[in-house]
């Protein structure tokens, strides 16, 4: 006990004095800048931790010990664990960035915990208060809203305000999408910027003489033609209805609300009136239109993403609602001559702006991280131009860093998509995370709607019932 207290006191002193704990490779004035923010941050967390965990202090202690002799070179030491889910984007970028970070911090022992099941595998560690230091929030069984509610994530509000990356650029200024706020606080920083949208095969459309649609009427018109030509116009991933919700329904709601996306934010805040609004009913009506015109592939309801995507790639279906990861995910199976066409939304009326429903995958620091210094440094490392620009290339999807993606080696459709996201004529919906129960209720209800089990009023009734229960 005595020892720990002594260490804590000592470390606080050392921290405040001069020693920088920030990432290697930073210039000196950056380093001192970072050191002060780090120190402030550490202080505050230690205070709030009130003895529940002494991760911060022991860690600071080790740092103090190792740093005591050196003066200038900031050194990160100890273990540092990074948890990252491996999904449609693959893990090329993560392997690279972790290797680079390790190389820049030879005294730090960086441990990569990655994989498609990592969220399940590491869950007990989060419950047990022994989580990895740094987490990439993506994939199933990890929900940022829930993690915040559960008090799992470090409050980054103060730190991020003027945090700079290793090049000395202010991180917030670089982000295309600002971090989502939970009760005015920031816990996670968006790393990957994805947009939902509708895909088609340009080559096929050209060959058949179909017009690439720009609004809902054109979409219906061309779908009529497509159907007449014997192709099913629209397939979606019924087993996971968040695809059609994200790429079709939510943009439709915003369009029907005259481009005002606050309705979605109200929905996320569990306001019943938002779900009962006309905009929602109009948007649901558009799904009903697709259904009643027989545009929706009947196979949709039971198939998962790979199956639906495969059918789409085989030109069995003309349109698919999906996310920008699609071409990378299916890269091995894209037939010769297939050319992705993409529009973020297809539900707007002629003359209305296009609506891009973005979804970001974020990174965060665990509240109970043992090596918060390394975690902060890693954040600063990740959000550098050098690292972030590789994301597009290695993962085939836009990162959340502003900048001219057209200069990068990113695939051409990523560049096309990125144009939409920066175009002033596009309404960009910031990432919205719904309550898990409400989200599930909306998914089930949308599925039921597409197969004619319920009508839009039934959809609203079902979802609002859940919202009322959750809001209690």
């Amino acid at each position: 006990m005595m020892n720990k207290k002594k260490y804590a006191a000592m470390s606080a002193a050392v921290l405040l004095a001069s020693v920088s704990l920030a990432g290697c490779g930073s210039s000196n004035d950056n380093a001192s800048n970072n050191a002060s923010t780090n120190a402030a941050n550490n202080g505050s967390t230690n205070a709030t931790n009130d003895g529940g965990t002494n991760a911060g202090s022991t860690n600071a202690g080790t740092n103090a010990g190792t740093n005591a002799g050196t003066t200038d070179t900031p050194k990160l030491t100890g273990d540092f664990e990074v948890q990252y889910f491996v999904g449609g984007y693959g893990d090329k970028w993560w392997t690279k960035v972790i290797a680079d970070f390790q190389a820049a911090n030879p005294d730090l022992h960086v441990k990569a915990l990655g994989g498609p099941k990592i969220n399940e595998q590491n869950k007990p560690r989060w419950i047990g208060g022994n989580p990895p230091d740094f987490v990439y929030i993506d994939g199933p069984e990890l929900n940022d809203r829930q993690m915040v509610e559960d008090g799992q994530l470090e409050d980054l509000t103060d730190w991020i305000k003027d945090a700079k990356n290793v090049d000395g650029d202010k991180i917030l200024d670089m982000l295309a999408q600002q971090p989502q706020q939970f009760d005015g606080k920031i816990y996670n920083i968006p790393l990957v910027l994805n947009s939902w949208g509708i895909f088609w095969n340009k080559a096929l459309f050209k060959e058949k003489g179909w017009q690439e649609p720009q609004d809902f009427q054109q979409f219906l018109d061309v779908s009529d033609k497509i159907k007449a030509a014997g192709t099913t116009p629209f397939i979606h991933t019924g087993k996971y209805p968040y695809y059609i919700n994200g790429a079709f329904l939510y943009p439709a709601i915003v369009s029907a609300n005259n481009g005002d996306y606050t309705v979605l934010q109200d929905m996320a805040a569990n306001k019943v009136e938002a779900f009962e609004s006309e905009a929602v009913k109009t948007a649901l009506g558009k799904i009903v239109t697709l259904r009643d015109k027989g545009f929706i592939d009947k196979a949709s309801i039971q198939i998962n993403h790979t199956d639906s995507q495969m059918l789409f790639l085989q030109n069995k279906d003309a349109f698919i609602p999906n996310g920008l990861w699609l071409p990378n995910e299916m890269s091995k199976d894209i037939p010769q001559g297939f050319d992705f066409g993409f529009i973020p939304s297809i539900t707007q009326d002629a003359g209305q702006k296009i609506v891009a429903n973005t979804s970001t995958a974020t990174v965060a620091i665990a509240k109970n991280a043992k090596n918060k210094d390394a975690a902060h440094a890693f954040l600063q490392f990740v959000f550098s131009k050098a690292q972030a620009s590789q994301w597009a290339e290695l993962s085939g999807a836009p990162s959340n860093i502003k900048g001219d993606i057209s200069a990068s080696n990113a695939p051409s459709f990523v560049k096309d998509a990125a144009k939409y996201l920066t175009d002033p004529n596009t309404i960009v919906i910031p990432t919205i995370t719904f309550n898990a129960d409400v989200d599930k209720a909306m998914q089930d209800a949308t599925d039921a709607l597409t197969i004619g089990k319920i009508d839009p009023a039934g959809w609203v009734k079902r979802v609002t019932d859940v919202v009322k229960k959750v809001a209690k």
Partner: protein
Amino acid sequence: MEAGSAKWQRNLFIASFIIPTFAFFCIFTIYPVAKGLYYSMFDWSGMSQTKSFIGLDNFKEMFKDPIVWRAIGNDYFLVVGKIIGIMVIATFFAVALTRFNFKMAGFFRSIFFIPNVISVVVIGVLWNFIYNPQIGFLNAFLSLFTDEKVTITWLGFTNHTIWMLLPPAIWAGIGFYMILLIAAIQNIPASYYEAAELEGATQWRQFRSITVPLIWEQMKVSILNIMMTTLNGSFVIVWIMTEGGPDNSTQVMGSYLYQMAFRQYHFGFGAAIGVLILMLSLITTVVLQRLLRHETVELS
């Protein structure tokens, strides 16, 4: 003193055979299971480090949830469907392979057990391919007989999709029960059948009045076992094939437990469903035992 020492020895023997197993069982099964069930009285997301005690609120909530009732209905549908399907087919095979003097009976008996050897993951993947509306086996097969390509979405009906999960469950379950019944039939003294034969009884008659009564005990064990494994194990095949969807139409208690505890962050609620499964299993066991009891015939 002799008697006392013998008694002591006996007790030592009993203790040394009972206690290690029981201790082991308590640590690695009873304790975690009991603790899991205990969470049913908490409002806990399953992720946070804090949980709050809410008594029986999860149970009150549970009985108001229509999906729970549907899940119970689906579970009992599977229980009844599996009991009938498995028992009829397994009994048929068991009788056919023992009483009918078929050639290659041994061969059939061996291969019929194979589905029990295969991991349920493989079974799930396999049947998903069978049911796949576009590239699946079933539609391709049916298309051989029709002009137009058949595109039935086998796992996407508005209602009764649960019916589609019955064939894989039965298919996978036959082998074990068949062998159990074969064993029982082989234990019936041949003289019984010879006597019946002399009286000119038909095969059906022999089956009715000799085989069934004498293997009834094994049939009872089979039925109880099917019921138990279905109520707490059917979620695996459901989860692999449909994840309870579409629109919760194939949800069973186990899959809903998983969904709530691990996908919707209501671990306490999930634990309450676990308690429900345990209760229903116990009640159903008692009821089934009563129903099946009076027909028992002891082998003399």
